[in-house]
């Protein structure tokens, strides 16, 4: 088991947003977290990163209990985070943004890892460009490159295809698939596009109101389930 959550309840202020979440994730899996807006998908990823105000329960990563570890230490366990809205540092150059990821590495590499450049040729050609000037799709690529620079075991992707034009959605989907199958990086992604989820994922969690209401291999994600928990 690579990552395991056990009875995790997570709070903003005094309000529990996630309630009693538990799941196991194995090396090389791709887990899709699905649900409508506001059911706690983002909070789930933020809880794994330790960015919520408080949590109870246990989070295990590679056999270590990281429930009480601060965010910067969790990153070093091999969690690469691609947050909602991408949150690249606008005043940094493309290169500096990628280098930011290297602070979470354990091998002390202080350069841009070659993988980041070979996956995203546009970034490789614009390393000195200010990141705030990139388009949405380019920023998403940069956010993925930055997370990859941490040499992650798991990538946490929060709606990676949100607000991105369709042809780039396809491109990002392919990149993620390669990372998962070719490089063996485990993925957790929240997604609103059922198509992307079906194409990429091999397991799913369906959430509603801060709880997991359905789970299983992606093949078991029936239209009926989608209908019940995702249509508005």
């Amino acid at each position, binding site marked *: 088991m690579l990552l395991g959550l056990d009875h995790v309840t997570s709070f903003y202020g005094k309000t529990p947003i996630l309630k009693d979440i538990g799941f196991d994730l194995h090396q090389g899996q791709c887990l899709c977290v699905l649900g409508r807006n506001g059911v706690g998908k983002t909070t789930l990823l933020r809880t794994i990163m330790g960015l919520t105000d408080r949590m109870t329960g246990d989070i295990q990563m590679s056999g270590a209990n990281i429930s009480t570890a601060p965010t910067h230490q969790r*990153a070093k366990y091999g969690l690469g985070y691609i947050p909602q809205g991408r949150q690249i540092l606008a005043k940094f150059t493309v290169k500096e943004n990628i280098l930011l990821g290297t602070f979470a590495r354990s091998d002390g590499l202080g350069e841009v890892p070659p993988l980041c450049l070979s996956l995203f040729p546009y970034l490789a050609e614009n390393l000195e460009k200010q990141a705030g000037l990139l388009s949405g799709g380019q920023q998403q690529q940069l956010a993925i490159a930055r997370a990859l620079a*941490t040499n992650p075991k798991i990538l946490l992707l929060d709606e990676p295809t949100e607000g991105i034009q369709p042809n780039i959605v396809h491109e990002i989907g392919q990149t993620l698939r390669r990372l998962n199958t070719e490089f063996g990086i485990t993925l957790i992604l929240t997604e609103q596009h059922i198509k992307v989820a079906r194409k990429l994922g091999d397991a799913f969690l369906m959430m509603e109101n801060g709880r997991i209401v359905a789970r299983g291999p992606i093949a078991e994600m029936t239209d009926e389930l989608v209908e019940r928990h995702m249509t508005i």
Partner: protein
Amino acid sequence: MPPSRLLKHKGRPRHAPDAQWRRGIGDVALGNSLSADIAPIANALILGLSIASIWLIAALGLAIIYGAIGVINMAHGEFIMLGAYTSYALQSFFGLPFLLCIPAAFIVVAFIGLLLERGLIRYLYKRPLDTLLATWGVSLVLTQLVRLTFGSDPKYIAVPEMFQSNVQLGFVNLSVLRIFVFALTIVLVAATAFLFYRTRFGMQVRAVMQNKEMAASFGINADRVYMLTFALGAGLAGVAGSLLGVLAIVLPTMGTAYVVQAFLVVVVGGGTILGSVVASGLTGEFQSVLAYVTNETFARFLLYLLIVVLLRFRPAGLFAPAKARR
């Protein structure tokens, strides 16, 4: 007393022996009828650079702490004062040469800053107004502690012999000490800029400044960055203290005099290193030229007026970075 020594009015913030000193060079310059027109202005401009370097060195630590952490450190003046007393104590009790007192003041005051950050400031990062009040309280405590330890009579840091002479540059007569302060200011500003813009640590600081959560998500310990930055800012104030202590006199209340200038530089500059350099240069030159045209006190009045007008139109300073405050 060496010519560079400032005769300080009791309780009245005076920066440098500008008036007296200029009178001295004015006499020299007027002796040459050819350069009588430009000489005084050239003197004023060069003196302005010297004033600028003094204000900049006083402001550097404050700018770093404000720019990187967003804390307005009201105890900055007292860090300067502690630097001056550190140099004074090391020199007069242990006979440490002045040039070694400068790095020693850096280390001692940085350590005091570190203790203050760990013991107090870090609990207040989410409450900026409380930091203001708390650091002001700290400044009172530090002033009083030093007064109780060293007394309220002025202390002097002996000027090393190599700094006691004056040099003639064209028609401008400059004390070596002031040239040394000017040079050291350049070195420190360059070193600080290098640290912030060319090193891994600097990148961590700039990342935390932009987005603390993202920085943490990529393995940066923001707590540690804040701690080290605060200590660095305090240490720079310590260096400023040993320089200002040797330019002027050492008093428990000397911090209040310098902190006003330091705040002006930081506010006008907008909190960045480059902004502080430009702001100190402008304010220093304005002060010097205005003082040449009018007098010292009226120049200060005009300068403050100009700054008020400037802030009316550019409230965030000359080089306002569009930053998201934590």
